[in-house]
């Protein structure tokens, strides 16, 4: 149980770190959105699941899953809204040369 939790927490922390690096390294807004996607899905999910292993059965577990559900439902909506607003604000995505 403890080991599973530790592994999940480690994966989550790494994903958060990679996402943060991605936000800095990516060349434009739209590619940065993908990096945010990592922190929002794998990062948050792995850390919250890892904490769920520590929490054990009870109200805490339900609340942890509630937070996770809220994040997984709302974050893509926010990302989509951001991308859409940027397109409408005449930001053209940086595109690679076609192969």
């Amino acid at each position, binding site marked *: 149980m403890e080991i599973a939790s530790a592994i999940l927490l480690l994966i989550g922390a790494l994903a958060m770190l990679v996402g943060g690096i991605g936000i800095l390294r990516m060349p434009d807004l739209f590619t940065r959105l*993908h990096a945010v996607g990592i922190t929002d899905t794998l990062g948050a999910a792995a850390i919250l699941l890892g904490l769920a292993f520590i929490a054990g059965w009870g109200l805490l577990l339900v609340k942890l899953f509630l937070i996770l559900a809220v994040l997984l439902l709302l974050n893509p909506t926010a990302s989509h809204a951001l991308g859409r607003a940027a397109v409408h604000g005449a930001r053209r995505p940086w595109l690679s040369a076609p192969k």
Partner: protein
Amino acid sequence: MKRALSLFLLLFAFWLLLSGHYDFWLIGLGLISSASAVFLARRMGIVDAEGLPLDLVPGLLRYAPWLFGTVIRANFDVARRILHPRLPITPMVIRVPAEQRTAPGRVSYANSITLTPGTISLEVSDDEIEVHALSVDAAEDLQSGEMGRRVVALEAH
């Protein structure tokens, strides 16, 4: 009416969960506030198939695990690209057909696309979704249409 009742039960369950105190007086207050929230929502006219998509719930139980697996695989792919010293990304904008019949179905599809790192839905129209993809692989994965088929199946339940 059925939707209003289930919304009331959902809200009340949420209230109980956050309250943590279960005596007569406080539970009574919770009942009153949930009931007034449902009343207001009905007056606003948002208790319908779009505001409370109960029809999608049974199918969701089968769709969620598959989506979870896909999202994790996509995560590792994008993470590898971010950490790669030469940043091997080929951003592109593609259009994928959205064959879902209902608005909640299309929204689920668009949200699933965004939830998967590597693809982000930019614009949703009646029969198409404009998608920004980080790499050729991510775009091809989406264009294979498996996710779209599964969301259509999610609606059929």
